[in-house]
């Protein structure tokens, strides 16, 4: 049974619905990410779970109990804020001890727990510092320690890494995942960064204007986006609207005018419902049209319009009869502008979305 369950929840601001008839279940011990652009309702969902917001309608069940009207301070959920929200007038020690002292814990035990938690986040020796004397990464770790030390029943992260620089972000997300798995604590994580979400989550929910477009394991979403929206959001830059589809054994045969394409069926047979083909720029391959393609079928001829250097690869905008395709390809000698090329669409990389 799910530990957390949002049932037909609606939230509105100024008479505009942010969430409407929203449903979400999370299993115990899992880390679920809410991924989407700003304004998609992911932060609203998180704040609703935390109890900072009230739903107009619907129910929030936690561990089989109705938590809809339980006030924030009675929920025992840890929340890590984007701005860290450390108490500026308190030392690192007092920040972390805050929740324990409110629980009327003996000072000796407070000390023991705070000290242990600061070790876990590698901040031993920083007890007396004020937040202003810490770096961004250190502040973030204090914020995590403060949320974890109360042994919360649920841990909530609101874009916790967006104020850190790139290297630190990678280190911190590994750290967050390690702590989360070590303590086996159910976690909801909000971010607009897909790499961040994919790297640490058991499940990712891609959100769009108050709805979950797809909820699945990160690899499933990465390979098989369920909708055009998800495909675009996670980097499928090229689309072909097909006119008809038919079953062809292992594959699905697609056509548009005189052009025929094959797309491999998904392994579990799920999905592959739509008529819109999607493929990543990295998965397309280019050949000079003077050279015969080593594979027949699933090709399209075109002309290089723009070529830009990305460092590891070159990016081309290729003009074809079906519009412009973006292709990333590693090569020593790039295609020249205006050169005639053949684009190859590997059938196992071409996915169909609705």
């Amino acid at each position: 049974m799910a530990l957390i369950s949002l049932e037909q929840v609606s939230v509105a601001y100024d008479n505009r619905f942010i969430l409407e008839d929203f449903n979400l279940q999370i299993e115990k011990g899992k880390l679920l990410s809410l991924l989407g652009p700003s304004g998609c309702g992911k932060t609203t969902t998180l704040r609703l779970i935390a109890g900072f917001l009230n739903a107009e309608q619907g129910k929030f069940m936690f561990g089989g109990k109705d938590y809809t009207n339980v006030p924030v301070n009675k929920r025992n959920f840890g929340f890590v804020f984007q701005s860290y929200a450390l108490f500026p007038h308190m030392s690192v020690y007092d920040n972390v001890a805050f929740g324990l002292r409110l629980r009327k814990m003996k000072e000796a035990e407070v000390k023991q727990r705070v000290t242990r938690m600061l070790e876990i986040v590698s901040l031993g020796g920083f007890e007396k510092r004020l937040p202003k004397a810490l770096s961004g990464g250190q502040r973030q770790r204090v914020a995590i320690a403060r949320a974890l030390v109360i042994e919360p029943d649920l841990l909530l992260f609101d874009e916790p890494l967006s104020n850190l620089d790139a290297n630190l972000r990678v280190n911190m997300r590994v750290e967050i995942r390690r702590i989360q798995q070590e303590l086996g604590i159910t976690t909801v994580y909000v971010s607009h960064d897909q790499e961040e979400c994919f790297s640490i989550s058991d499940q990712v929910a891609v959100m769009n204007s108050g709805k979950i477009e797809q909820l699945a394991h990160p690899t499933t979403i990465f390979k098989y986006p369920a909708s055009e929206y998800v495909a675009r959001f996670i980097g499928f830059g090229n689309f072909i609207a097909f006119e008809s589809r038919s079953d062809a054994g292992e594959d699905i045969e697609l056509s548009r005018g005189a052009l025929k394409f094959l797309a491999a069926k998904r392994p579990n047979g799920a999905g592959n419902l739509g008529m819109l083909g999607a493929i990543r720029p990295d998965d397309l391959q280019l050949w000079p049209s003077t050279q015969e393609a080593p594979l027949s079928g699933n090709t399209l001829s075109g002309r290089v319009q723009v070529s830009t250097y990305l460092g590891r690869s070159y990016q081309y905008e290729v003009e074809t009869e079906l519009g412009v395709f973006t292709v990333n390809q590693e090569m020593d000698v790039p295609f020249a502008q205006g050169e005639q090329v053949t684009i190859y669409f590997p059938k196992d990389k071409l996915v169909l979305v609705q």
Partner: protein
Amino acid sequence: MNKRYLYLLLLPGFLFLAAFMLIPIILTIVSTFMPDGSLTLEGYMTFFRDGYFNKILLTTLRVSVVTTLVCVVLGYPAAYYISRAGIRKKSILLALSIFPLLTSPVVRSFSWMIILGKKGLLNTFLMNIGLIQKPLEILYTPVAMMVGLVHLFLPLIIITLLGVMENLDYELVRAARSLGASSFTAFRKIIFPLTVPGLIIGSILVFVGSLTAYTTPALLGGKERVVATFLYQNAMTLNDWQAASVIAVIMIVITFVVVGLMNAWANRLNPKG
């Protein structure tokens, strides 16, 4: 503009203040120690030995302290409410709270006379409902001064506190709540400590303002004197400029001591240093 000449921007204002404030104050201070060319503390000794002056000084300090406390008690909740209000409500409430500052102290004091006088609105009302048999003596007492001064300075403390409260990151309150604090505990442990520096600054403004206020105590205090009205009396009625100077210096010293102490306290509490 070349940075070397940037100080030119400061110069006109500085020269004005130096010529018409700094130099006169220094001359005043010097004159109190050397009334006739030789160094003496006699001017001050006379005052502090004088029971009448000590009583006035005490009244002044008492009125200022009580005015400050009342302003804090009334202003803090009001400022907090305004800081948490929506943008439209906020601008209306802010305009209303600043409004007293826009009227002349003379006009304001005369309205208080009408309200607080022996046959004033307040006494008439209280007698009509039978709460009192004979009129209360409020006008021309220190109480009347305090009422007038609170009216005058309440906007000041509200504006000062509002500045601090609007900069308060409300996420801190949510953080405290998520860690188990009730609304009241979150206020006590987070909001209040973080607004104390603003409270101190506001209190300094009110206290110093009350200490040096002239018009309001003069009109509402009647025969009751405060240091500022006493100074005026010495200078303009008794023509004793020496005594007036000594009073002025005593006021300056008290002001500096209070501001210094409270600033030090505020700095010690300010987490942002």
